[in-house]
């Protein structure tokens, strides 16, 4: 009885909140052109950043500071999971070995998955995607290895050190911008060195977008694999 009262109270509150929010969205007409800053981005993105993909230019170049924060958030998640699930000695507790289909498939597909992930993040300025989906694809490759082989483990030390070094390189890219151009996260490859200005629409363009996306792709791949590894292990009781 109490639970029924609680449920109906919750439903009524939610409907009121929903109606209130919907009323507000009635004032933001769907499908109309209401861009202000967006229009400036679309008109100037090719000249100012060298990338044809406006979304990645916004993410990495114009609003690069946000992406720095986002990379930090993922780093916090990986560190936090590592801190909370820390044990003195750990080992994997899976008991069922993968089936023959899984094992063979993984053995052959793993390199292709890694290459595909690398393709996604290297071409971030030309096709949709970028560092984050690329890194997630790489981590999926490692997840397949975990599911197929019950004794597989990623090499921890090197993954952790890679994570730290790659994160540092992102901040160092920003600091080099500060040193060369006078502003933090300044795109010195496109604006000062003018690399690839004749190459718009091809691989060797886009300023520092491919560089940063490679950094992010490696970071996300190692972090997500680290999280998977932490969650699939349990304590060894002696």
């Amino acid at each position, binding site marked *: 009885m109490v639970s029924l009262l609680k449920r109906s109270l919750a439903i009524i509150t939610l409907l009121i909140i929903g109606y209130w929010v919907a009323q*507000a969205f009635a*004032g933001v007409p769907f499908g109309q052109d209401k861009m202000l800053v967006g229009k400036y981005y679309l008109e100037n993105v090719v000249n100012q950043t060298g990338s044809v993909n406006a979304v990645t230019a916004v993410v990495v170049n114009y609003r690069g500071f946000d992406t720095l924060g986002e990379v930090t958030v993922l780093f916090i998640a990986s560190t*936090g999971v590592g*801190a909370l699930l820390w044990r003195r000695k750990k080992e994997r507790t899976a008991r069922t070995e993968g089936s023959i289909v899984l094992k063979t498939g993984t053995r052959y597909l793993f390199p292709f998955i890694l290459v595909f992930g690398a393709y996604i993040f290297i071409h971030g300025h030309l096709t949709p995607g970028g560092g984050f989906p690329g890194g997630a694809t790489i981590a999926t490759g490692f997840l397949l290895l975990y599911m197929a082989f019950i004794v597989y483990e990623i090499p921890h030390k090197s993954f952790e050190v890679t994570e730290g070094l790659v994160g540092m390189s992102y901040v160092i890219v920003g600091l080099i911008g500060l040193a060369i151009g006078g502003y933090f996260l300044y795109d010195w490859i496109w*604006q000062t060195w003018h690399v690839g200005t004749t190459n718009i629409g091809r691989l060797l363009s886009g300023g520092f977008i491919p560089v940063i996306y490679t950094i992010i792709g490696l970071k996300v791949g190692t972090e997500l694999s680290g999280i998977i590894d932490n969650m699939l292990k349990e304590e060894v009781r002696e």
Partner: protein
Amino acid sequence: MNGQYAALIIALPLISAFFIPVIKAASKKAVMPFLLLVTLLQVVVAGWLFKEVYTSGKPIIVMAGKWQPPIGIDLYIGHFAALFLLIIAVISFFTAYFSMKSIKVEPVDKYAMLFLLLMLGATGMIATGDIFNLFVFMEITAITAYALTAYNKTGEAAEASMKYMILGGIGSSFFLIGIALIYGATGTLNMAQLAQLAGNINPTVAQVGLALLVFGLAVEAELFPLNAWAPDAYQAAPHPVTVMFSAFVVKAGLYAMARILYLMQDVGSWHSVLRLLVIMATLTVVVAEFSALRQNDVKRMIAYSSISQVGMIAFAIALGTQSGIDAGVFHMVNHAVVKALLFIGVGYVGMKLGGTTLEDFEGLGRKMPLTAFAITVGSLSAVGIPLFNIFWSKIRILLAGVAAGYAWGVALILGASVVEAVYYIRLIHRMWFGGSGERVSESLVLGAIMLFLVAVILVIGFYPNYIWGIAQKAGADIFDVGRYISNVPLLEVGA
């Protein structure tokens, strides 16, 4: 030096946090001293920024990537930001030393990384000039806080962290809906440009958007009824982490709320949102004080006291007047110092004597006289006794409240202050006039830190005008939106 080097205040903790795994691979013992070094460097950078902004009177605007706002993201380091970045850095430095002594739960290197990132999150929330960037830094602060709350890995810590996560998750989702509404209505994310366009937004959209933004921030700013996570989290977190929560994490949330509220003051329904906020703030004060009375654990009791003081700051901000904001900022500074002192003292007792219940505090005057003295000064100050710093800020808040027409709120807050006196005096009585015990050795450095904070409290208590002058400049930074807009070099965009 070029003002753009102010970006170092964000880059320094970030690169150090990423560097720690490399240090750990080299030598595990070097991690904590490295943490101390980084916080010291942060104090130097923040001190330089404070001097620059206060001697020249002009804010420092960092344009990330050389893109002018609103095309790019800018950091607006005005009077308020410079003041609080310095406070955050100094308190982090003290807390880093305290952590070196008191954190024994493994893995310590990950604790150091999370510590630096918590400091970075609060710094970013205060320094930013873009509303989505505020969201990203708010999430950095929140997720680090979730991890640090559960760091001790006990059952209570995990429960507190889960409660915090669920409330925090709901809050940040609502904040994002607010951003969707405001972006849909104006087309920009830059705070200065939003203030310019605020008068032209459809009133329903503006009212709902503003309410959702404030609601999302109220979770971080610990206002009733969204502060259910706070007492549990303060109690279960490691002692240095509780110092950081109450000294600056909640202040960053309050600042963000104040900034957004005052930027959107041209919106039609501004006054109704303010009235709602006054009611929430008064409720926070009253509920927290009465809950504190029933507590047996001293750390939890002081946590409730911290929440009620935060309610008073929110009350001052929500008045909508210049004197209200100035009083609120003054109280933020005083509260940071007092609560840092109290939580360091209580945490030290917990570390040395193994617990923080009222029984552990019996006869503390004999066992650890320096710590007991520090806690006594902190308690007297929190109650609002004249000649201690909080007295001046509380008086100003109450005067501003009466001037703005909220006499009923002022009366309730005065009543709650009487309750506060009761439980603090009870604690002081227990410490000096109860039980017996032998001297326990106290750390010289921690004692020096506590005495420094006591000295700051007494100096502000006797000569409040210097800090009050600084608080007024910081308050004007938030209240005077016209000046804020003119300081930001906005590019002309749009048809």
